[in-house]
Structures are given as C-alpha cells and as structure tokens.
C-alpha cells in the first residue's frame, strides 16, 4: 500500500484515496507532429526498473492532479509535486540522488531531460 501526500491540498493518505494516471512529463503532440512523435506520445511509455515520475489524481479527495517521484523496485516515494511543471523540480531530484547516489535526471525519459 503506497502512502502519498497530495501537494494540492496537503492531505497524506493511502493509495486507495488516489488514482494512478500513468507516466508524467509526456510531450503532448498535436496536428503536424511526426508519426514517430505521435506514436511516442500515444503509446510508448517509460517502464523503468527504478526511479519513475508519474501522474496521480487525488480522486477521493480534492480531485486534483499532481505528480509523484517513486521507485518501482522498492515502492519508496521520493516526493510529490505540482502537475503545473514540465520537468521534475530540483529539490525532488536532489532527494532522489540522496537516496540513489549516481542517479541523474538524464537517465529517465529516454534522455528527454539530457
């Protein structure tokens, strides 16, 4: 059972209060996008064994979307942050590197943040 804190309303609760929304920081492609980018947006997903960034919704609470940084191997939650951002904030990345020495944002998202 994951325990997450909603950054929108501050409530800390068990995962049954939230709904997972899949990978975060997708680039939303639209008319005129290349086939490759459009396919990536719709279907291709990061599926890391380790640090991951995801969307969650506080479904049975304030109802708002937010982002979470989590490890898919230990289920450790490194932190949650606002969905109004296109990249994970530095303080979240610092928390991750503190727990996973050597990890870098470059490793995630097929080098998107390289």
């Amino acid at each position: 059972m994951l325990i997450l804190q909603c950054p929108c309303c501050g409530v800390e609760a068990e995962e049954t209060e939230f709904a997972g929304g899949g990978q975060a920081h997708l680039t939303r492609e639209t008319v005129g996008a290349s086939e490759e980018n459009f396919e990536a947006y719709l279907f291709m997903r990061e599926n890391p064994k380790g640090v991951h960034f995801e969307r969650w919704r506080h479904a049975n609470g304030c109802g708002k979307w937010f982002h979470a940084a989590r490890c898919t191997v230990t289920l450790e939650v490194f932190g949650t942050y606002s969905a109004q951002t296109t990249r994970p904030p530095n303080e979240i990345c610092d928390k991750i590197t503190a727990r996973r020495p050597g990890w870098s944002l470059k490793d995630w998202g097929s080098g998107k943040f390289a």
Partner: protein
Amino acid sequence: MKRYSAFAIAREASRYHTGWERAWRAPEPKKKYDVVIIGAGGHGLATAFHLGRNHGIRNVAIIEKGWLGGGNTGRNTTIIRSNYLQDPSAAIYEKSRSLYETLSQDINYNVMFSPRGVMMLAQTQHEIRGYLRTAHANALQGVKTEFIGPRRVKELCPIMNIDGPRYPVLGALWQARGGTARHDAVAWGYARACSDMGMDILQQTEVTAIRREGGKVACVTTTRGEIDCDKLGIVVAGHSGVLAEMAGFRLPIESVALQALVSEPIKPCMDVVVMANTVHGYMSQSDKGEMVIGGGTDGYNNYTQRGSFQHIEEPVRALVETFPIISRLKMLRQWGGIVDVTGDRSPILSKTPLENCFINCGWGTGGFKAIPGSGWGMAELMANGHSPLTEAFGLDRFREGRFIDESVAAGVAH
C-alpha cells in the same frame, strides 16, 4: 532421455525409485549459439521447443536469471480459453488451446490439461451484449463457444448464487473446451524436451547487456560471461522494458503487479472455471482442492512481485456474494507477478529495430493459455522471418493504428 510411462513407474517402484534421471541438464554456457532466447518462462521455452521440433534449429540456449518457470508462468491461475474477439487473437489462442489438448503426449510430460469448461459470467446488461457479440464472432472464427442462460449456469455450477442481489447472474459465455493445466508442469515439460534436443538451459544467469555489430545483434553479456548468437529472442514478460532498453528500442508497455491467492483445500465442489469480469474476480478449484482466486491489476508501475491489499480484498468480497459457501474459507497463500500490459491488451510478437533480434511480450494478464501457440508462431517468425500466426502482432501496429483491441475480451485479469 528415458520416457515417462506407466511401465516406467512400475519399474522404478520395484527398485526404490533410484533410476529416475534429472529432467534437464545444467550445462556450462558455450561460446556461441545459433539462437539465444532470454527468459525461461513458458513462452521462451515453447519458442525454443518449436525451433527444434518444427525448424530443426537445435543449437539454442535459453538464459534465465532465476529458476525456470519462476516468473509469471509459475504464478498464474492457469485459465485456458480461446474465445477472444478479434480474428488474429482467435487464431493464435485457438491454435494454442488445441496444442494443449495433446501437449502431454507431444512432450511426454503430464501437464494435467483439464478441459473442464470456462464460464465468463454476464452480470450486467452491457456484458450480455458484449458476450453475445463475442459468441457471434467466435462462430465465424470457428471457435466453439456459446452464450448460456442463468438456469444452465446454475446447472453447471450449483454452488453459485445467481440471484444477486447486487450482481445477479444474467447468463454466461461458455467455452466447454477451455479449462486449466498445471502451470509448473508446462514449464518443466518443455524444459525437459528442449534439454533432450541438446539445447542448453542456463539458469541463475542474468542478461545484463546486448551488444550489436553493424546494426545486427552480436552477443549478450551475462553474469556468466559473454555469449555470441546469430539470432536473439527476448521473452521476459514483466522485464521486457528493461531488455528493450538494452537492445536500444522502446515499447508500448507498462509493467504492473497482478495477484492471486488460494484457499485451504476443501472437498470437490466446483468442476468448471468461473470468471466474473464485472467484479474483477475469478475462481476455480485445483486438483488438491484449493480454491484458486484471482483479481485485477494494480494501477501503477511496479517490479516488486507484490501488489496492494485492496486488489485482494475487492475480488474476494465480490466472489463471496456469488459463492456464499466460500465465506468461511481460510486463505492459505497470496502472491503477485509482474505483468507486461500493452495499450490494446494484445501481445507483441515481432521483429525489432535491431536486426536479428525478436521480441515476444505484452501477454500481460493472459498469456498462460497462449504458451504453445505463441511458441509455435514465435519459432516460425525467428526461423523464417514471418509467420501467419504472428503477422498481426507486430510492433509497428501502434504507429499504423492497426490495434487488436481485446480490452473488452480480456478486461479482467486474463
């Protein structure tokens, strides 16, 4: 290899069972193989088996990081059926089901295939319409299924309460020739047959990198050294994303946990498999008498082979309503597996952007039933470069919009 038979049992009984051979060898890795398969689950082993049996390719290694059959193949609830909706699915699942019928004879290993019948309950009007549609599609595909009414459901499974109150049983999609098989035996039987053909099964050997030369796959790095190969098959279910990254391409797949549980053994009370998709629960009785129960997947990426408790609680709560007699049962064990789920809930059997590297994955919550057929098709694809069985399941279908949408037929855990 000595054959298993009634005579062999009598012979060994008369000499205190001292003459049984090991079922498969534990060889040292060779420098090079014609084909390397990564993953000794059912699909990897069946692929190797059919490479040898159907195509005469026997210089093969199957590399497994843990023990063979220790992934999802040894963790599933063993339901076998072929009444999917789309034509390509019907073809590969029905091929598979029909191969299961003679599998024990083909590999001289009792996989305990039990075509006891699989019943998928319709508990809403919406489900009735869905299953009628599937039954009609199956009739056109030559897959024998029928839609049955609640009275017949009760006849086939008397312990069921069909009157609700919350989810009354309104009918069911019934495949009389579906059933179950012993999951471990499927892996062990294929492994024994592969080993007998001279193939090397390398357990406790993890692939850590895939090396290329001139755009082609050249070699895999393992925890027991480098192994060269002409062709490579990646068949690792939940770890497909990890291996695809090593091979330099991406997949439309996410890995999530799926759980199951069994009760204490009780006397025989149910001789069919029942799936209740609306409430995400399904149940059958094992030969030992345990009630085998499965539920839905977790909603987030996970590699831990552990799931969240509410996904155990929910199916059990719902099943108690439909099967009141299980309400006092104690549960013995609960476990999880990491399943590889695609956007259209159909598998991927495909060439990859890396030449001579093939992938078989995306079976998600429902690939046990597909093991023999998938092995047949995957072996053909790897040997000949194409296969009528796998044609529609290519990686390019997502870009081209040719989905094989089984989200309705496979909406629950398989």
